[in-house]
């Protein structure tokens, strides 16, 4: 049925769950995401507690520009969709198509990062630096930590694409693709809370 033959025969329909190792990798990754949830929770709670302490620095209402945040949100949301298409292509054993979706995912991830760098740069020029106030410190820590996760995801998926070129889609490489997609969606989920709690609530006051 499929043209992609695996060493031991046909690649199974859901190659990421075909081996015990693959299933354990996915389970372990979910436990990691539980810990990541707690980690982002600490950053969010610190931000929520400190967000009104703006000192002499600019206020969130003055600083944040909704169109830019909206654009960043759209980019990340679309990139999440690309990532889910990659997993679907993997389930159909269409390796080239999967790599195409993965490349679309990281290109959008890079666009998001570029926008964030531009945004931070603008803020710094408006006098909103890391050490300006408790608000600015907790803002850069939280949003910057999310940005670092995006950067890590871009690197990770980029390396996975190279590995796919080298080793092809097997029951060993498939769980990695699947898990990286889960990670990417998680980053998107965290962003939902960031644009809500940091930007929109910041704008409301």
């Amino acid at each position, binding site marked *: *049925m499929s043209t992609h033959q695996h060493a031991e025969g046909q690649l199974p*329909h*859901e190659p990421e769950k075909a081996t015990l190792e693959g299933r354990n990798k996915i*389970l372990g990754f*979910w*436990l990691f*995401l*539980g*810990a*990541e*949830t*707690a980690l*982002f*929770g*600490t950053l*969010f*709670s*610190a931000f*929520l*507690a400190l967000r009104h302490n703006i000192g002499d620095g600019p206020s969130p209402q003055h600083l944040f520009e*909704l169109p830019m*945040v*909206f654009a960043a*949100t*759209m980019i990340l*949301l*679309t990139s*999440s*969709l690309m*990532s*889910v*298409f990659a997993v*679907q292509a993997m*389930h*159909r054993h269409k390796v080239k198509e999967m790599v195409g979706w993965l490349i679309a995912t990281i290109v959008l991830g890079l666009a998001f990062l570029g926008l964030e760098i531009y945004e931070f740069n603008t803020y710094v020029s408006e006098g909103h630096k890391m050490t300006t106030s408790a608000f600015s410190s907790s803002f850069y820590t939280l949003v910057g930590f999310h940005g670092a996760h995006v950067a890590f995801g871009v690197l990770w998926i980029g390396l996975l694409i190279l590995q796919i070129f080298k080793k092809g889609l097997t029951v060993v490489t498939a769980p990695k693709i699947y898990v990286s997609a*889960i990670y990417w*969606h*998680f980053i*998107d*989920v965290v962003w*939902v*809370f960031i*644009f*809500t*709690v940091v930007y*929109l*609530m910041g*704008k*409301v*006051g």
Partner: protein
Amino acid sequence: MSSHHSTSEGGAKRHRTEGPQKHIVAFILSLALTVIAFAAVAAGEINTTFTYIILVAMAIVQVFVQLAFWMHMKDKGHLFPIIGIVSGCFVVFLMVIMALYWVWW
């Protein structure tokens, strides 16, 4: 949707080929929820408390949509992932309560 038929009944064509439709639906849903949240703030005429409620509600619904569809949590065999995420959320809940009400106020 209807993506999890039993795969036991034999034949060569036993496994489902899941279409992109439900993911596009999830995407459009997320898009709509995002637009509502941004519009509630951009309109700026609603009172603050009500805006907060809209924002938090939109965020929570969107997270459920994304967890269920994109992170496959509605698929079978996801008990442990759900336990992992729920326990993480529990810790977050305690942390936010502590930071906001017990430590700082």
